[in-house]
């Protein structure tokens, strides 16, 4: 028995150690893949996306070796790659049989090996459990499902206290239905709000901001509140010039230097609004074409081309109302985004 165990153990440790060296208690280390394949998997876009969820997925998933995971729970855990997982469903009955025979009664933990070419899952049998290939496969599948159920439990609010798959599934279904109903309701509200606002006009301003935001920092919810005084001053002085062309060129040059800071952007927008109100349509479209040419062209299903000077910009529809409310709404949007 011991002779059989040793050679099987040695390749696993040999393959596991380099990847452990590269990335702590990461998921791929537990998979025992060589580092280059691990890097490939790292770059593979997969879900789940939340780092906390990923961490938990690595902890709870089938492939978590108990000892290794508990020793070093590193925050930078690489995502468990679901596509290779599903590919790993093809299990080699013979190899698992061989391993199962060997490991029976010896190891309390589960460990998996990923081979380079054929992604098979090798699951070790626990003490006192059936070791034929069918039950092994079933057990691996069941544990995969349980791991995902745990992740879902954490995502859905109020589910962590509930025990039992059926009730948790119930909650998940309720939550999905609730969110879908919310989307319907909110779209109804937006449709009701619509008569006041021409969407085409609103869109240009918001798209311009979001394009800038996208270039500088994406998804940064916590924006620093302290202003960078030195950087703010040039923006102010250059934006103050009434000539729109000059503004365009200076904003183009300043853009890579400007950090995305909340107040700064708001004030930039404030001045922007005033300027465009002075110059109305030509300046809006000019600015947009300049920005549009330099912005990275985002590949979407619908290719948005800038609309010609047909639709009136946002401000024009309501001249009686001062500029304040739209600016405030945009500021609100920016603050919350």
């Amino acid at each position, binding site marked *: 028995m011991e002779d059989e165990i040793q050679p099987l153990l040695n390749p696993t440790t040999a393959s596991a150690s380099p990847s452990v060296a590269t990335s702590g208690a990461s998921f791929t280390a537990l998979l025992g893949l060589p580092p280059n394949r691990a890097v490939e998997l790292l770059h593979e876009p997969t879900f789940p996306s939340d780092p906390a969820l990923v961490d938990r997925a690595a902890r709870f998933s089938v492939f978590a070796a108990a000892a290794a995971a508990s020793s070093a729970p590193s925050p930078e855990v690489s995502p468990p790659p679901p596509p290779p997982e599903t590919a790993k469903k093809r299990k080699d009955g013979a190899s698992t049989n061989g391993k199962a025979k060997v490991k029976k009664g010896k190891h309390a933990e589960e460990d998996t090996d990923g081979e380079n070419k054929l992604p098979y899952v090798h699951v070790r049998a626990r003490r006192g459990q059936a070791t034929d290939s069918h039950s092994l496969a079933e057990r691996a599948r069941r544990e995969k499902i349980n791991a995902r159920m745990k992740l879902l439990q954490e995502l859905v609010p109020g589910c962590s206290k509930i025990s039992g798959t059926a009730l948790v599934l119930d909650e998940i279904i309720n939550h999905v239905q609730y969110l879908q109903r919310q989307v319907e309701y909110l779209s109804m509200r937006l449709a009701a709000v619509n008569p006041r606002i021409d969407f085409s006009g*609103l869109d240009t301003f918001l798209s311009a901001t979001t394009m800038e935001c996208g270039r500088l920092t994406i*998804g940064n919810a916590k924006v620093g509140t302290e202003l960078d005084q030195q950087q703010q001053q040039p923006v102010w002085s250059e934006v103050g010039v009434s000539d729109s062309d000059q503004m365009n060129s200076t904003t183009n040059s300043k853009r890579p230097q400007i950090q995305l800071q909340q107040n700064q952007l708001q004030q930039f927008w404030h001045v922007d609004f005033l300027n465009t109100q002075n110059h109305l349509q030509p300046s809006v479209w000019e600015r947009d074409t300049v920005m549009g040419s330099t912005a990275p062209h985002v590949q979407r299903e619908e290719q948005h081309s800038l609309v010609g000077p047909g639709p009136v910009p946002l401000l024009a529809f309501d001249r009686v109302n001062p500029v304040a409310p739209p600016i405030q709404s945009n500021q609100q949007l920016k603050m919350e*985004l």
Partner: protein
Amino acid sequence: MQNTIPSKQVLLKTFLTGLRRRNITNKGMTLLERKRAIKFSADLAMASVRKEAKWSNALMADLSRKFQRKTVLPSKHRHVVFRGNKVSTHKRGAKQRRAAKATAIAKCIIRKREQVLRRLVPGGKCMDECTLLDETLDYLQLLKAQVDVMRLLVKALE
């Protein structure tokens, strides 16, 4: 690296781009038509943010079908339900039989819930359990982001 939590700015931008292209105006559209168009753009924006997920592709296929104004066909898929109820034999004692019945009932309930989930998540009919849970996870995240974005928009426009 890994997928980021869907950036709300990206969602908003895609959403508004789609809305603008649809040319939603006050005249020529009733409330319901507008709402439908808005929901369409919202779904499209949501699906295009996460292109590598299965539900996303299924959603896009569904939307393209709707876009061409075909009536939504009632899906006549027959999802195979695995009954899997074992024929009980008198191998075990009464207590174990009760336990087995309980687990069988639980399994039935779980299977029913799973079917409902398949109907909810786009493209769920053609997935196995594991993938279904994965896709639900992803779908939930994006739905949350979508709802947040729309709430912000509503708040900003009112």
